[in-house]
């Protein structure tokens, strides 16, 4: 492996001092265009990326950021336009070519093999007929780790690492060869506040060594904190940017105003709550808990068996009162899924009890929990929440199959099922050709609307508790804000809300109290208010509640 001959202590050969005066760009794209069936994901985008600079690509979900980096990484092929590396045009048809050109990418979803060790993941990609060059790999690992200030055990299976550590492995891999450009797609989405601080330290070091960093995010605050230069994408087009010198002299509020002006027509300027989502720095929500009311949900000492790669719950207990939003923070994989499933009745706890309105429902299955007044809006909308190969109408009734009045003695009443679906489609503004359309044809936002319609609609019984799991994950601003509004409305209507989210800002914006799950334990519950964010950040790394 040739890169082991590279100079020590440096990610790439020296010579690109981060000069403030514009040097020629390391990487450029010119009128890059990519079409998908029905949409132009990237429409004539031209951008320059400079050495020693962090260039933030900003835009809502669906603005075309991921498509752009997909083309740079060799995962997608452009339909038109060109990519230039140090001024000369190149063709990037495969990930290998991208790597060979010195472009390293850290994708939003971890692309590591959990069953292989750290060092094996880093070695992945060599010629198949050769023996593994372990010695050289360990040397390169030591060199890069020192240079980035990272300490990891190279022989640990990646599946045993925390998500923050896995991301460090991804960054190591992206830098493994002589990398000139490091692309990171939404790198903070799964990190603890401490993890974000570590990441920005690493990025600073890389910048000072002359690497060009491309940072993709949909949060304005991150663009302000981490970026030197900002470009804003909207519906596949480049709609503006903030140059490096301009950026240095701005306050956060100034930048926010300017960027929002680029992202939206004046006519559709976002409202205050939308701005909060955009900024990603939570407006701290004033708690409004009715302490006196009897709890609508009591979770008592719940434990579950650990499953592969996820922590089991250990003695989780909390109360939830009507009208209260209880946020549950924590990095993914610390037991959130298990907690949601135990409350919804999808998973039997190994010990403990769940009470709804004072009634023990621990033994009840999903249907019994629904009748008791529990609803669960899952985050795995396509994999678990819906069946793509069935119609919208069926998906709206997925949790009521066989129930009156849509089925009589097990026989379907299709006319009634369709009518009910048409009503829901109208009431919840679900954009679909008809109720017979296969669900897989709907957009992500509309699939979320189907879920919300099913779980929050006028369904059977009295709704007491709603569990939301990552309700805005992957949605555009409009749909994210819609989900937030539904959560607020439900709370205002006197329902207890359990809001599981990895997005701390979202929790701070919506919750009355926030609990933190760490390795399957509820390590603390914090009343929302000034200073709550910092306290939660400490708890997320496993510090014991003060």
């Amino acid at each position, binding site marked *: 492996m040739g890169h082991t001959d590279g100079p020590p202590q440096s990610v790439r050969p020296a010579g690109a001092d981060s000069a403030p005066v514009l040097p020629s760009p390391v990487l450029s794209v010119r009128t890059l265009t990519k079409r998908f069936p*029905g949409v132009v994901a990237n429409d004539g985008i031209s951008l320059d990326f400079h050495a020693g600079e962090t260039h933030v690509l900003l835009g809502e979900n669906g603005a075309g950021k991921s498509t752009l980096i997909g083309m740079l990484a060799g995962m997608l092929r452009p339909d038109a336009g060109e990519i230039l590396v140090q001024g000369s045009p190149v063709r990037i048809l495969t990930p290998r070519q991208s790597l060979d050109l010195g472009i390293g990418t850290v994708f939003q979803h971890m692309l590591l093999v959990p069953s292989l060790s750290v060092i094996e993941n880093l070695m992945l990609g060599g010629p198949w007929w050769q023996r593994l060059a372990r010695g050289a790999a360990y040397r390169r690992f030591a060199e890069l780790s020192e240079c980035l200030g990272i300490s990891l055990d190279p022989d640990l299976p990646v599946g045993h690492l925390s998500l923050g550590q896995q991301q460090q492995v991804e960054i190591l891999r992206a830098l493994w060869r002589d990398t000139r450009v490091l692309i990171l797609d939404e790198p903070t989405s799964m990190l603890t506040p401490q993890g974000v601080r570590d990441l920005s330290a690493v990025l600073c070091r890389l910048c000072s060594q002359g690497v060009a960093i491309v940072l993709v995010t949909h949060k304005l605050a991150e663009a302000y904190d981490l970026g030197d230069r900002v470009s804003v994408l909207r519906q596949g087009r480049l709609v503006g940017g903030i140059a490096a010198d301009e950026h240095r002299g701005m306050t956060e509020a100034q930048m926010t105003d300017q960027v929002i002006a680029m992202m939206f027509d004046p006519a559709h300027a976002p409202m205050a709550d939308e701005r909060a989502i955009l900024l990603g720095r939570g407006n701290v929500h004033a708690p409004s808990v009715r302490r006196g009311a009897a709890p609508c949900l009591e979770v008592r000492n719940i434990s579950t068996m650990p499953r592969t790669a996820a922590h089991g719950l250990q003695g989780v207990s909390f109360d939830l009162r009507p009208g209260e939003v209880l946020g549950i923070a924590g990095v993914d994989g610390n037991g959130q899924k298990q907690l949601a499933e135990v409350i919804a009745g999808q998973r039997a706890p190994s010990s403990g009890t769940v009470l709804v309105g004072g009634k023990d429902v621990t033994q009840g*299955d999903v249907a019994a929990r629904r009748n008791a007044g529990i609803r669960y809006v899952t985050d795995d909308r396509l*994999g678990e929440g*819906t*069946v793509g190969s069935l119609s919208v109408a069926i998906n709206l009734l997925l*949790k009521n199959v066989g129930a009156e009045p849509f089925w009589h003695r*097990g*026989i379907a009443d299709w006319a009634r099922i369709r009518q009910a679906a048409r009503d829901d489609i109208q009431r919840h503004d679900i954009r679909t050709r008809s109720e017979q359309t296969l669900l897989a044809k709907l957009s992500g936002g509309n699939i979320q609307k189907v879920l919300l319609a099913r779980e929050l609609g006028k369904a059977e019984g009295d709704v007491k508790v709603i569990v939301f799991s990552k309700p805005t994950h992957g949605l555009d601003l409009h749909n994210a804000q819609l989900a937030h509004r539904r959560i607020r409305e439900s709370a205002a209507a006197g329902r207890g809300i359990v809001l599981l989210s990895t997005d701390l800002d979202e929790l701070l914006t919506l919750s009355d109290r926030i609990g933190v799950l760490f390795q399957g334990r509820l390590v603390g519950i914090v009343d929302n208010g000034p200073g709550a964010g910092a306290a939660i950040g400490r708890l997320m790394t496993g510090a014991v509640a003060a």
Partner: protein
Amino acid sequence: MNTTWRVLLPILLALLAGAVVLIFLGKDPLAYYGYVMERGIFSWGGLQETITRMAPLLLIAAGLIVAFRAGVWNLGGDGQYLLAAVVTAALAPALVEVMPRALTLVICMVIAFVVAAIWSLLPAFLRARYGINEIVTSLMMSFLGISLANVLVKLFFWDPTTTVPQTRTLAIADRLPRIFGSNIHIGILLALVVIILVHLLMTRTAFGLKLQIVGASPKAARHAGLKVGALTVVTFALSAGLIGLAAAVEILGVWGNVRADWNPAYGMLVVPLVFLARLNGLAVIGFTFFFSSLMIGGESAARRIGVPQDFVLLLMGLVLAFLALVEYLDHRRRQRLGA
């Protein structure tokens, strides 16, 4: 491409590829196919045999449709079929001596259903409880069942009056009644009723929809509160039971006994038919007729033209492969058009 073509094209391509093989083997494909058609459909005797053969094939198809719709790969049909056949053949001649014929026939069918269903329980349980691939386990149980059926014939039900090991024979008068003086027994009517019932079950009832949800996405099924494990076991049992019923109909209607080492091996052969019909119970009737005539004609052709019956196996393999290929090409074409 419309649906008709998507279905006919794989069949035509398979027949064409088969013709190439025949030419390679020095046989005239037109003569072969012509003879098969003539013997399988266009002669009264052949047509009766074709329709008679349809009965077990349709019931097996019903069993496979139930399983495949629920995403359960029950490939252990042969073992389930043979065990049910042996038990039927052993019971029927004994029962008919102590009770009326109609009752004997019904009881035999019920028991055949139950025996085959029991034989599917272990793979069903392993899949439901531990997620172990049911293809492998049902195949293992199939081999086990085939051998066990032989052991039963040789050690327990050997008719002492015969030299080759076989069960006692049910007298022709005691078998399933014929339809209007033809040689076709009423098993075909039963099979048609069952396949239509299965079709209605899968398309009109909550139970069918639940199976479909489990088949399409076990995760979504769990989320919706369906009892995935229980549904898997019920599906497996129903699927195997219908295959057992097919065996009972074949024994009670046609053979009257089971000889050791007899194995028609229908289980895998019906798989292509079910996929051609896209798991639709009504459509499968037509394909079963086609395939049944191919089998009957092929059996005559083996004697007359000297192309062994195994050619039908090859044809069915080709049909299935071409079906998958045509589906793929059609899917790609639609994607391009949609872009």
